């Protein structure tokens, strides 16, 4: 099942093309990473999905239907640049935002209480927004995004400004929502978070999609046959000469193989050397490495 499908989406600002024929699909219930360097066109894509902007051409389908304004009530968006009315109180502010998403006053109140309770911040209800710290208002932002129980959540840098404890809390909430079959678009620069959280990613640069796929599959696709062997004992001289050694340290060596070789070949070599192999693993590229390489190439 596809939650969201972008087909040949183009958006131009004057002569500048912010989104150049971008197509990808987001399956239901997955956590989807939308990645790209600054100015790559991520925000433009998100704004088109949230109906803030309209594509010049191409189509966006939401749950199989052509995306239109009524769908915005089924989307929760937490922008990277976010803010709240400083003079309002936490409770009334959340109720206001929930009502703008189509909830009735009673529903809004109920949801606000539920979420304040859930994130253990019930006593903030009557606090003014301006009294909150950055991390605190971040939590309120998160609640505002999920209050109306959206099917699709768009989180742009949701962890920025959060301390490790609150980061953990939000991450748990994200995972919990994912278990509830919510689809989540996750946009960030922090690649270690992407690997930790996302199932699929799409990488954009200069308005174009340059990479798309499942994280596991991508790591396989971009692997470079690198292996690390840790061992005890002495290798005889010249053994490593035939290999492409990337780095070597006391009792450990990183080797790159050509395509036709196999991890077992390397292991065999070490076993024949009569040294004790303590660890043997393939080094897969991190998403960060893939990201940098792809951006540089594009």
């Amino acid at each position: 099942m596809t939650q969201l499908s972008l087909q040949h989406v183009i958006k131009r600002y004057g002569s500048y093309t912010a989104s150049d024929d971008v197509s990808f699909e987001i399956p239901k219930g997955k956590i989807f990473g939308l990645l790209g360097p600054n100015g790559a066109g991520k925000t433009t894509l998100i704004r088109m999905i949230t109906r803030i902007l309209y594509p010049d051409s191409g189509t966006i389908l939401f749950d199989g239907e052509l995306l239109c304004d009524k769908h915005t009530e089924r989307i929760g968006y937490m922008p990277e640049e976010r803010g709240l009315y400083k003079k309002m109180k936490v409770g009334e502010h959340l109720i206001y935002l929930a009502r703008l998403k189509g909830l009735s006053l009673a529903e809004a109140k109920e949801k606000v209480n539920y979420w304040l309770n859930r994130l253990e911040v019930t006593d903030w209800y009557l606090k003014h927004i301006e009294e909150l710290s950055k991390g605190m208002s971040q939590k309120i932002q998160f609640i505002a995004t999920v209050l109306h129980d959206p099917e699709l959540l768009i989180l742009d840098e949701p962890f920025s400004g959060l301390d490790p404890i609150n980061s953990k809390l939000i991450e748990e909430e994200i995972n919990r929502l994912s278990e509830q079959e919510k689809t989540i678009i996750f946009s960030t620069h922090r690649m270690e978070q992407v690997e930790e959280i996302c199932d699929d990613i799409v990488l954009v640069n200069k308005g174009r999609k340059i990479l798309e796929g499942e994280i596991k599959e991508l790591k396989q696709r971009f692997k470079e046959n690198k292996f690390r062997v840790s061992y005890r004992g002495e290798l005889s001289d010249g053994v490593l000469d035939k290999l492409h050694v990337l780095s070597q340290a006391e009792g450990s060596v990183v080797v790159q193989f050509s395509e036709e070789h196999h991890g077992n070949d390397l292991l065999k070599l070490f076993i024949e050397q009569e040294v004790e192999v303590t660890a043997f693993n393939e080094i897969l590229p991190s998403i960060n490495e893939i990201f940098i390489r792809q951006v540089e190439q594009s």
Partner: protein
Amino acid sequence: MNKIWIIIQREYITRVRKKSFLLITLLAPLGFLLLTLFSVLISSYSQDKTDVAIIDESGLFSDTPIPDAEDETVYFHKISDNYEKLSAELAKKDDKQPKYEAIIYIPKNFDLNSPNKPGIAYRYVKRPGLSKRSFINQRMTDALQKLRMSLLHINEQQIEDMQQKVTLNFESLNNEKEKQGYADAAALVGMVMGFAIYISLFLYGTMIMKGVMEEKTNRIVEVLTSSVKPFQMLMGKILGVGAVGLTQFVLWILLMFGVNLISGAIFGIALSHPASGMGQLQNSGVEPDDILAITQNISSLPILQIVILFPLYFLGGFFLYGSLFAAVGAAMGEDGDQQSLMIPITIPIIIAIMIAINVINNPDSALGFWGSIIPFTSPIVMSALLPFRPEWWQIALSLVLLIGGFLLTTYVAAKVYRAGILMYGKKIKLKEIIRWIFSKS
């Protein structure tokens, strides 16, 4: 529609419950009261007394009275001192309180037939103000006139008879209600209405603009635009602030009634005191009789028309300019440093009030006609014109154009607003705004 209503509620409630709202609402009439009190006080104390010595060497004026000022500001003293001696005495700077502040010196060879050659000198210690100078000049001219007439053997009574003035009764032929003094009443009411719109456009226009800037600066727009259309946000804000303005006006009118009672009592005392209240009224050129005529004529103004049309022009003007102020707020940089963007909307408002001031003296002028037709000036100019009973087709045309005008500005403003609110970090140039206006949505 429902969402606009939710936005209106927030805009309204958050503003009305602010302490500053309460403070301004309460203090403005109080300020008004203080201002009236202050001006009465100033007029009674600032008009200091001037003693003028008259040394008449020619002896011509000895039998002609030169009366003191009615408002107790100038006193004339005919004395027979030596001119040179007295002027030397007065010229001494160390004298803090001289006997006389000035000397009118009429030379020995003063000739009634050529009163400026040799002329009468006015030598002062303290420089007289403009109004005092013209008052003294007038008194001397009057005295001269009387003197010459008496030389022609015309007696006091005859002089008075000769000087009687006539006041024409200006009354309309085709409208029996326009009695004498009607134009004054109409001008007063028209000006009050014109100014009410003028002030509220600036007051609530800036309120809208600041609201938009605040939303842009603290980035709440990012969150809001994913829930509501920019047009809904724009409308919600304008209507919400409009409701705040309405509340404030109603409160002010109620408070003014209260203040009026108090200041009326004070004014009553002031009026019975010729030195202060009367003097002030005379200075402004309004005779007490005129005030009576104005109050009597207010009831004969086209009240029904005014009651229906004035709110329409008020709303029309508010919507027309409110959306433009919102657009400027959206286009303004986060630090609000591009005040120049306000010029295109403040200039027409100022022009409108200038036309309105002109129109109340010249209700049938071409300037007034065009001012009352063009939507950018019509709310203020037409409001000032309403008491003068403009033609019905003129009102109809003006209203149609005003509605068209505000639809157009709202359309244009919505485009600028839409593009502007999500644009930060860079200065927005006028060229760019024009591009937004003409871009497809």
